[in-house]
């Protein structure tokens, strides 16, 4: 080991300064600031005035407002439906692509992964046109009428609007989940399946008794990251339902934060929302750690 001179050691700090200055100014200081601002009245239009301390006013305000609970419920519903369905479908896709019976694996991997690489803005815009309620003849309704189904007011009906948001998010994320599961499947030894083949195990049992249990770590990982990601859904809601239409039925925590802070200019209230998001996500992260450690 060569002992570095004092001057050399001082130079080491030059290497870390760009990155950590960036972290300091744009991550750590804002995090601390978020907590402080959540206790203040502070308006976007008078950003150079000092924030006025109001204590827990915004937290009380939020927890007492039905809008906040509506947003929490919407975010919960979105997560509750999108995450499990994506995981199951992603796993099935991965198993099929991984199967020895399938040729041209790379083709499927690439093709199924394309939605994940596409921009959510464009993809959400496409779904908006496909399901648009303002057009009596949205693409999906045209198809529905052709096969004799009744027209649906996709984006005007609260439940269907949420369905479209969930659908586009799942559609975009499936390729990623499949790729992660494929990584997990590569880790399972072929011997296990060969032994199962000798015992003539049914495909269903193969899936539920062998594959799924062995993929538990991958599933935990995806469950946690997808849940955390779902709590932060913004773009599809912003594009497809203009941030929460109809009647706030699709607004989520982040669109609420965006509306309050950047449309309404209530920086203090928006900070309080972001602190609440932080607490929720931290709890989810701790649960994830517990679950993976137990494994």
């Amino acid at each position, binding site marked *: *080991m*060569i002992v*570095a001179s004092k001057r050399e050691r001082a130079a*080491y*700090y030059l*290497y*870390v300064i*760009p*990155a*950590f200055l*960036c*972290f300091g*100014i*744009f991550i750590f200081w*804002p*995090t601390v*600031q*978020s907590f402080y*601002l959540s206790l203040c009245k502070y308006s976007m239009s008078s*950003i*150079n005035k000092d924030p006025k301390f109001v204590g827990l006013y915004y937290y009380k305000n939020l927890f007492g407002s039905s809008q906040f609970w509506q947003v929490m419920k919407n975010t919960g519903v979105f997560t509750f439906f999108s995450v499990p369905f994506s995981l199951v479908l992603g796993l099935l896709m991965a198993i*099929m692509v991984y199967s020895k*019976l399938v040729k041209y694996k790379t083709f499927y*991997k*690439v093709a*199924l*992964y*394309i*939605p994940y*690489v*596409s*921009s*959510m*803005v*464009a993809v959400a*815009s*496409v*779904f*908006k046109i*496909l399901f*648009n309620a303002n*057009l009596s003849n949205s693409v999906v309704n045209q198809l529905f009428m*052709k096969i004799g189904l009744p027209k649906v007011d996709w984006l005007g009906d609260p439940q269907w609007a949420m369905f479209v948001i969930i659908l586009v998010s799942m559609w975009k994320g499936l*390729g990623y989940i499949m790729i*992660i599961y494929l*990584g997990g499947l590569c880790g399972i030894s072929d011997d296990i399946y060969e032994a199962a083949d000798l015992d003539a195990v049914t495909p269903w049992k193969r899936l539920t008794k062998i594959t799924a249990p062995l993929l538990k770590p991958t599933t935990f*990982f995806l469950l946690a*990251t997808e849940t955390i990601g779902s709590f932060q859904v913004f*773009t599809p809601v*912003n*594009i497809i339902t*203009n941030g929460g239409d109809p009647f706030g039925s699709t607004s989520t925590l*982040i669109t609420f*934060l965006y509306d309050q802070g*950047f449309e309404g200019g209530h*920086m203090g209230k928006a*900070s309080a929302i*972001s602190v609440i998001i*932080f607490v929720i996500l931290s709890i989810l*992260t701790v649960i994830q750690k517990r679950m993976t450690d137990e494994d």
Partner: protein
Amino acid sequence: MNKLENKNNVSYKRSMQLKSLGMNILLILITVIMLTPLLWMLATALSPNTMIPPAKLLPEKFTLQNFGDAWFFPGKIGLNPDLTMGTFLMNSLIVTICITIGGIICDSLAAYVLAFKEFPGKNLLIFLALATLMIPSYVTLVPQYIIIAKLKWLNSYQAQIVPFLASGMGITLFRSHFLSVSKELVESAKIDGASDFRIYSTIVMPIAKPIIATMTILKAMWSWNMYMWPLIVCKKVEMMPLQVSIGFFQGQNVTQWGLLCAGMTISMLPLLIVFLLCQKFFVGGIQAGAVKG
């Protein structure tokens, strides 16, 4: 006996072939369903404009008119006659390239000393780099905006680039890769009198090519598709990146479906081309990012 076995074998083979055929058909179906929204977008972009969006996956008449119309559309809505899609494409390219290259430099420089050198505060810095992964970006949104506003950076490239120049994941990935490179290699170069910067740029970075590829892809994909932050800091149309401009025009109640779809196709194409060219790195990169991040 022999005959029976043979027969069994043939029927086994046949059943496997059938299974294989079924599986492939099913997968092709799934793939087509998964790609339908994008194929529809492309087909609509290539069809002449209609009043109601066409429910077809193949254009009846083929035209490139929409792409030209979409390209010049931003200049025609009365904001700034010089605007084209090219403006937004350029903005997105500048932001993406700066974040990707700048980010890789910042991350790898920090990772270099954090991997090979001993100095006071090193462990704290490693901890802090990991801690950034635990802080969701939305938590810092409001104060970040205030900082940018106070720096008078609203509607600028800096606002879209500087906050993302370093990433905890990049530092972590680079550092673990550097640690797997033999420490002796670095120290023997040191004995030969090479300066630290030289070791970093001529020995360590060339060995880290796989991580550079991974990080390039992750950062490029992320910054090209970034939406909420530029939406907040870019209110001036001239500074908008592609994604924000698509959201913007989509919100103008445009009913020229072909034009809209052509615009969206343009906004996706650059990244899709990069993806198709380097899909190997993409898949590996996503898996690496998932394990560490």
